């Protein structure tokens, strides 16, 4: 027995333990994606909600929202994309709450795997899901008249900016999922966080249409900054420093939220 143990310790150089941490993370990311496709309702809901938002704002509210400098659909679709990637974080919270509830996190903690892979695998799987949603909503956007003037490279850059932002923000939702007593509560807890961020923002209307008291928040909060960056890139408008501001927010958020989630994970189960 002791002999085996000694062999193991000598095998685990820093290099191999990093390699294993990556391998564990991918194993769990793959597991989460497999599970996602096995629950068709979850996939359908993830897709239907943003599509409904596009149609609702394009055809119902859009006519009543004046926009300077471009058409409303061009203004709307980049915003909806940002909103959708942020909504994707809800599944980070629900997924971790379910794993905790089912005792899977306990099982993972007793395995000789990298513990961080549980959080890494979840957030990466949710990012992969966000990529799929971005592609689909882009398609829907084009179908209802979205015509971005920026180039293809700028479009990809815009997608990367919002994926990075959503990824960093999802660590906060990982914390929520681990702190909630069950997945239903986890889901309910995400809404009071997500609604002000996405609706008190420049996602659906320009800043000047918001009431004066709301503007300072709406203008400076990170979702608006990200929406500005994404919209400027996609529509070929002057980007200014919006991309950098969004990325800075991403770094700041992950630096604050990831330790919270990791600490919660250590104490969970």
């Amino acid at each position, binding site marked *: *027995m002791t002999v085996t143990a000694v062999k193991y310790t000598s095998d685990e150089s820093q290099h191999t333990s990093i390699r294993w941490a990556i391998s564990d993370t991918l*194993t769990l990311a793959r597991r989460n994606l497999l*599970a996602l496709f096995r629950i068709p309702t979850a996939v359908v809901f993830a897709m239907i909600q943003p599509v409904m938002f596009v149609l609702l704002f394009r055809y119902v509210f859009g006519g009543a929202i004046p926009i300077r400098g471009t058409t409303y659909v061009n203004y709307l679709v980049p915003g909806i994309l940002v909103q959708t990637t942020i909504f994707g974080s809800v599944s980070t919270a629900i997924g971790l709450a379910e794993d905790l509830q089912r005792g899977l996190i*306990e*099982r993972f903690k*007793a395995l000789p795997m990298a513990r961080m892979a549980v959080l890494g695998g979840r957030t990466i799987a949710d990012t992969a899901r966000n990529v799929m949603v971005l592609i689909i909503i882009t398609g829907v956007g084009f179908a209802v008249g979205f015509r971005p003037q920026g180039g293809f490279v700028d479009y990809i850059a815009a997608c990367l900016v919002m994926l990075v932002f959503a990824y960093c923000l999802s660590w906060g939702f990982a914390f929520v999922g681990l702190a909630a*007593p*069950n997945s239903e509560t986890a889901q309910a807890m995400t809404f009071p966080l997500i609604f002000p961020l996405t609706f008190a923002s420049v996602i659906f209307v320009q800043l000047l249409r918001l009431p004066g008291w709301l503007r300072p928040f709406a203008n400076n909060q990170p979702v608006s900054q990200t929406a500005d960056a994404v919209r400027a890139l996609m529509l070929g408008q002057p980007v200014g420093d919006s991309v950098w501001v969004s990325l800075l927010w991403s770094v700041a958020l992950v630096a604050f939220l990831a330790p919270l989630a990791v600490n919660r994970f250590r104490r969970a*189960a």
Partner: protein
Amino acid sequence: MSEFAVEATNIVRTFHDGSFRALDDVTLRVPTGEVFGLLGPNGSGKTTMVRILSTILSPTEGVATVAGFDVVKHPELVRRHIGLAGQFAAVDENLTGFENLRMVGFLNHMAKPHAITRSRELLAEFGLADFGNKLAKTYSGGMRRRLDLAAALVANPPILFLDEPTTGLDPQSRQDLWAIIEGLVEGGTTVLLTTQYLEEADRLCKQLVVLDHGKIIAEGTSSQLKSRLGNTVLVLTFGSTEHASVAAGLIADLSSKAPNVDGTVIELTVDSGPAAAADALRRIDASGTVLVGLQLREPSLDDVFLNLTGHKAEEPATTESGDTGGRRARRKAKV
């Protein structure tokens, strides 16, 4: 491996900033190659002990080694030597049985072909070969437990922790699981098992400790515990509570233990059931009290507790149907 696969010394674990002592100075030694039982009702600290030994929780005080490694100083080495099957089958319902096992193989850092062969092997061994490609959510309770146990065995761990492996299972599934555990021990595995069932402890465990409110209240081999307790419980039911209390006085000297009178029912633990029953019948018949029922049964955990602590194991054994109520109760209990 040394003589003891698991050694835990003076383990204390508190929750809620010290206001609740889940484990209070527990010391136990699990001999290598044996099945060791932690017997106790819900909330007695069994699961907390298993969590500490499997490096999920750290002890507030005390030292524990598993396979010779300190659970606090070298948890990563402990994890290479243990398998854990929890109280609620921790399988991913949205993966197939095969995918569940393969995932655990990968997380044990097994090479892909090895993880695949081992998963197929375990599915066959546990009677799940035909269901390997079915989603775990379609499995019955017994199948889930077997899959959960198989997942704990993927890396062939020399030490296995089983937290209430048969709670809520039907008798046949329970028998199946017992046979599997016995097979593992024949193969040299050390098993630490928690249970609420005296019958299970008696069948599987060479040595036992009985936990109550986080303290060890008895330890020894199962036959030692039984001889302290009496082998059989004689249950007599009377037509009225008056008759029951009269009869209790008449038969009290048939056992070294005092009879437990609950309404019209008397329970008495005795060494020899048939002889005590015959004696009791003669005396009751002569006294003119009206007996309406007589039963001999194996002592239960409740009887053990009644004898050792003077109180019953408070909570009845919960049945698991995979319902969220049970999971919630569990999560609440472990906070």
